[in-house]
């Protein structure tokens, strides 16, 4: 039966077998896939911090790697050639279509201000500024090759050393970066609270470099030109349904540096939405603007309002723009927490198809494993509640404690099986079982082909 069909299929196979391809191309395709995986493994480390810290701010510049082969547009290449110090910046922004376009459109303001101390030179290369935020590019150079330096802190203040109403959305995660290259370049991203304008054009940029046990402070005052371009705000108020979950896209605000999407989540949804990792803008000529490399997102306390920052399609070469959702992490509301009984040493509650396991309680230390399979996202909230509603935060090595909260020490480790192990001490004061952790992330997805025309 079906002899003809089978013959056709075999013939087809033979034809495709004749297609030639160079061994080199195959080899390098495998190689670059491998490198991508290696790189991401390191990046995930920093993502972890985002999930586990309640602070608004997060993380990830440090590992934007230094790209070896740079492919850029001619306009961009010209800019690079004409601005001193620009070549250092290329590698930092080339994965960000929005920032690259901002440079092409003359938003980069070169500064080249340096300060030298004890064989270390810090250079403020330049800034990109719009009404909503600023990206500061800097380089650190050490006279000694491979002198390990760590960045202890980075700050932007006004001239009178006052704090600015800005969020620093730059930063690295678990460990501050160690600078071992002879020249290390990076960038710092700042965003203002709504309706504020960054700075008053006279600012003071500060970096603390740790050399051995000593922290050396560098301060560079600078002036910049305030941006005169206005944000593009597009009110949408469009309702979408993804697997029965109602989401309203309220508006999109686009500035040259970043774009912001405001979403409202229906509180009556049956699922709790945990993350919009795959949100992006696209246009009909195939350009994509993805989550800002650290995927900063702000949520209102009741988690019904989300503000998500994306790369900016401010300079869009097409007259159309779409917002695409992709896979969304979401879990049934009945399933969005775990309960731990420290007496019976059991999970009283965990999601269906749970990836929590190995609960151990010994010497007033609790530990369990989250089988995240190499995707090192923190699954649980940074605090737990006992049965009387007392809240305890877990203080990891990288936690900046908030005043007025109760903390217990904790530790987060990778396991040999690509899982995460969370260990924390039980509070000294008496607590009532069970302990409740809310889920911050879980590999459970909803997905539907939903696109919204932005303009």
């Amino acid at each position, binding site marked *: 039966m079906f002899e003809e069909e089978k013959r056709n299929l075999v013939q087809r196979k033979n034809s495709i077998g004749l297609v030639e391809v160079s061994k080199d191309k195959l080899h390098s*395709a495998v190689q670059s896939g491998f490198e991508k995986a*290696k790189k991401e493994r390191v990046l995930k480390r920093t993502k972890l911090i985002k999930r586990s810290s309640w602070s608004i701010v997060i993380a990830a510049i440090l590992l934007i790697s230094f790209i070896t082969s740079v492919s850029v547009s001619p306009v961009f290449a010209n800019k690079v050639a004409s601005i001193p110090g620009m070549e250092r910046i290329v590698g930092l922004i080339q994965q960000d279509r929005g920032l690259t376009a901002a440079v092409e459109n003359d938003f980069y303001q070169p500064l080249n201000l340096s300060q030298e101390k004890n064989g270390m030179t810090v250079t403020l290369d330049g800034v990109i500024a719009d009404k909503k935020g600023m990206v500061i590019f800097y380089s650190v150079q050490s006279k000694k090759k491979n002198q390990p330096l760590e960045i202890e802190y980075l700050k932007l203040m006004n001239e009178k050393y006052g704090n600015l109403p800005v969020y620093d959305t730059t930063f690295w995660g678990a460990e501050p970066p160690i600078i071992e290259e002879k020249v290390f370049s990076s960038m710092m991203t700042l965003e203002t609270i709504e309706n504020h304008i960054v700075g008053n054009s006279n600012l003071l940029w500060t970096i603390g470099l740790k050399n051995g046990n000593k922290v050396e402070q560098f301060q560079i005052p600078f002036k910049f030109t305030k941006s005169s371009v206005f944000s593009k705000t597009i009110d949408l108020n469009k309702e979408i349904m993804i697997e029965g979950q109602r989401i309203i896209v309220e508006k999109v605000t686009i500035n040259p540096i970043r774009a912001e999407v405001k979403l409202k989540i229906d509180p009556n949804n049956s699922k709790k939405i945990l993350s919009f990792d795959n949100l992006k803008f696209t246009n009909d000529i195939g350009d994509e603007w993805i989550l800002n490399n650290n995927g900063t997102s702000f949520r209102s306390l009741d988690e019904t309002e989300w503000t998500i920052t994306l790369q900016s399609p401010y300079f869009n070469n097409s007259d159309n723009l779409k917002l695409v959702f992709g896979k969304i992490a979401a879990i049934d509301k009945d399933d969005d927490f775990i309960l731990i009984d420290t007496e019976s040493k059991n999970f009283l509650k965990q999601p269906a198809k749970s990836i929590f396991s190995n609960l151990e309680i010994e010497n007033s230390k609790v530990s369990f494993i989250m089988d995240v399979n190499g995707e090192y996202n923190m699954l649980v909230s940074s605090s737990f509640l006992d049965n009387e509603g007392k809240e305890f935060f877990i203080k990891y090595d990288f936690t900046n404690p908030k005043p007025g909260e109760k903390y217990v020490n904790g530790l987060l480790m990778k396991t040999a099986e690509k899982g995460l192990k969370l260990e924390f001490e039980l509070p000294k004061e008496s607590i009532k079982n069970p302990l409740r952790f809310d889920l911050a992330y879980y590999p459970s997805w909803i997905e539907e082909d939903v696109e919204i025309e932005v303009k």
Partner: protein
Amino acid sequence: MNEKILVKKAIKGDDEAFLTLMHSYEEALYRTAFSYLKNEGDALEAIQEVTYRAYRSMKTVKEPTYFKTWLIRIMMNYCQDVIKKSKREVLEERILSIQGITEDYTFLEVEEALLKLSDYERELLHLKYFEDVKIKDIAVMWNTPEGTIKTRLHKALRALRAGFEEKGEVKRV
């Protein structure tokens, strides 16, 4: 080195073993990708993406003997996603553009008929008649009795025939 040992090493996180394996399968994977995507650029991108996904999920390889089919599975999933995302017309254009590789007119018809199948049917036919995976092994892979696989394979061939015939009718009009 014995492949099974290499796979075991790769599962344990040995990068060199992983790369050796990937390089030994890159050409086979390329053919698979090409059979779905029909052009070099996309097929190479598929290799890159599959290498990336394979590395990410190495730990999920349960049975080293089936490593190759495991890779093919990742590749098929990837290609199907790509096809779904790209527009139908684009694909047909691609099919036309590779017609040069074969003198046989039926090639185009086969491709079109394949596009009409469900993912599952297409995968079955692909595994059996492109990758030459034994029915016994397909059964293990899908954890389904051999008899069932045979029945479904028949159904898939029938669907393919229906695809040809439909095409024929259109032509007659």
